[in-house]
């Protein structure tokens, strides 16, 4: 269970998060939706420790994460697939996956997890010797998700996995995300594609200019008029 309380983050003078509070219960899919610049990515980056918070607290299974080093946070079972995929282009698919397991020392288990990722994404196994930069956008996204899974996280955070992908590929990715969730990994998902994200989400939060303005189950927000208007592109008729 991840519990964020009253989190404030600023970049220089610009306030990115103005005291947000949210919960990510174990085994659920939680999604954060919002426009560009609302602070979604900042939230994720603060959880992993890439960005320092001003105040507030992030509790992970009762343990305070703020002020901890990135490697400690990641080895405590949190992984992130960053926005824009950011695979390592001149390294092979297999090397990319191995980098994901960088903080682990159990060789045999790593080998098993590579096989697990290959089962989830058979396409990656076919291309395991190919340089990651030569993969298509969808395959790179699969690799980014697979790489995040290699640290064997209890909580996986995905930053806009649908970015720049064809609708059919997005559906593939989302079905795999639900599959991963069924295997016991908690998911925190950030999306512009609110429709897709809300459909698979157990819990959802709407973020606007650093504040959480709405929250509820995925189905509730899908039905919410305000959300429909702002994010789903359906005008009142």
């Amino acid at each position: 269970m991840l519990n964020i309380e009253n989190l404030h983050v600023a970049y220089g003078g610009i306030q990115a998060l103005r005291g947000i509070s949210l919960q990510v219960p174990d085994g659920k899919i939680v999604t954060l939706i919002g426009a560009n610049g609302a602070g979604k990515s900042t939230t994720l980056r603060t959880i992993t420790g890439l960005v320092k918070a001003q105040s507030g607290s992030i509790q992970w299974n009762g343990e305070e994460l703020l002020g901890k080093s990135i490697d400690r946070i990641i080895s405590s079972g949190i992984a992130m697939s960053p926005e824009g995929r950011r695979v390592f282009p001149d390294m092979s698919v297999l090397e990319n996956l191995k980098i994901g397991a960088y903080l682990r020392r159990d060789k045999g288990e790593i080998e098993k997890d590579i096989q697990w990722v290959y089962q989830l994404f058979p396409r990656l196994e076919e291309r395991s010797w190919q340089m990651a930069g030569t993969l298509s956008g969808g395959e790179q996204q699969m690799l980014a998700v697979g790489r995040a899974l290699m640290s064997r996280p209890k909580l996986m955070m995905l930053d806009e996995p649908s970015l720049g992908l064809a609708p059919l590929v997005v559906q593939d990715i989302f079905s795999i995300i639900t599959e991963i969730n069924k295997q016991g990994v908690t998911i925190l998902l950030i999306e512009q594609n609110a429709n897709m994200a809300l459909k698979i989400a157990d819990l959802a939060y709407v973020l606007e200019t650093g504040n959480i303005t709405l929250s509820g189950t995925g189905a509730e927000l899908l039905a919410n008029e305000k959300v429909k208007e702002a994010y789903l592109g359906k005008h009142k008729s």
Partner: protein
Amino acid sequence: MIQQKSKKGAVAALIACTALLAVIVLLENVSVFLPASSVPNLLKPTSQLFAVLKKGAVYSLAAVSMNLLNGFTGLFSLGQAGFMLLGAYTYAILSVPVADREAVYYLYGGSAVNFSFQDMFGSIFGTQGVGGAVSMGLGVVVAMILAGCVAAVFAYLIGLPVLRLKSDYLAIATLGFAEIIKAVFQWQALGPVTNGANMIKSFPTFSSFNITDASGTVILRLSTFFPFLVSMICIAMICLLINSTYGRAFKAIREDETAAEAMGINLAKHKMLSFCTSAFFAGVSGAMFAMFVTNAHAKVYTTTMTYEILLIVVIGGIGSISGSVMATFLYVACSEWWLRFLDSEVVLSNGMKLPFLRAGFRMVVFSVVIMIVVLFFRRGIMGDKELPDLFKKRIRKEGAK
């Protein structure tokens, strides 16, 4: 299965290296075993061939250590000559026998450091016969390791502030460091240690490794074998580092720092590790360079030397160890040997001189060759592939047919 493959590869590499060393020893000793009249000019000990081989061995280690930093970790550093200088001086200062110090440091009335590994091991194993050989070899190896360590310590100290910089700024800062080190080592006030602007000499060199009999005639030449052996061991260590999880982390940092950080890779720690390792091996190659030119002289370790090594790395392919090694021998052979004829005037039978062929023309042609390489072969000889990759590809292609 992957592990089995790499084991096979390691065995193959080991066999190849041993074979190469054997060939070197054979080539070198043709002049010892055959009567002097039947030795071709090429294989005489004074031949350009051996000078090129020795310098190539020294430079290839310097190039590979630079590639570790520039090619594999993506840190563009130009401090190579500075670290080589540190290595050369550390080696020289710790290796000149105490008895010779008065003569070497005559301007300063003797050296402030009255200690040498040569004397220390000499007093344990003796200075004559087998004992002498053991103490000389041990002294050289220990001094070389220390040379690397001193360079690595300096790298750590300047790395603390400098590694926060990126790309061009890092290059300028390290370049500045190399220049400062060069100036400091020529400083009069440090004369009793560094011999000021004069050179330090009379330490064991490559030719000290030739085995002689009591009368002083050479019975086995090892002067080319030794730099090859040292370079091979060091390059093999760099290969092991690159293929380890650390090496993978270096590459990840090169490709995308933010993503690497998000994987839990500690950027500062890994950059420092790469910087210090690179400096260590640059220090060792600096010590070998001092042995090659038989003196340690701060004036030699200029920016031009760094550029020479950078050029080799670029020609060989940034991110390819075998490329760096091949490019080194190609570069050294061209600049020291194959293009020499361009420097000598040729007078035709009718007394006319051929145009252009005179001292200095070699460098003109050489620059043109380099420009062509940079313009048309931007990825260098090997790109980021290694030699074994080429064989693998061929096998795969044949299999596809």
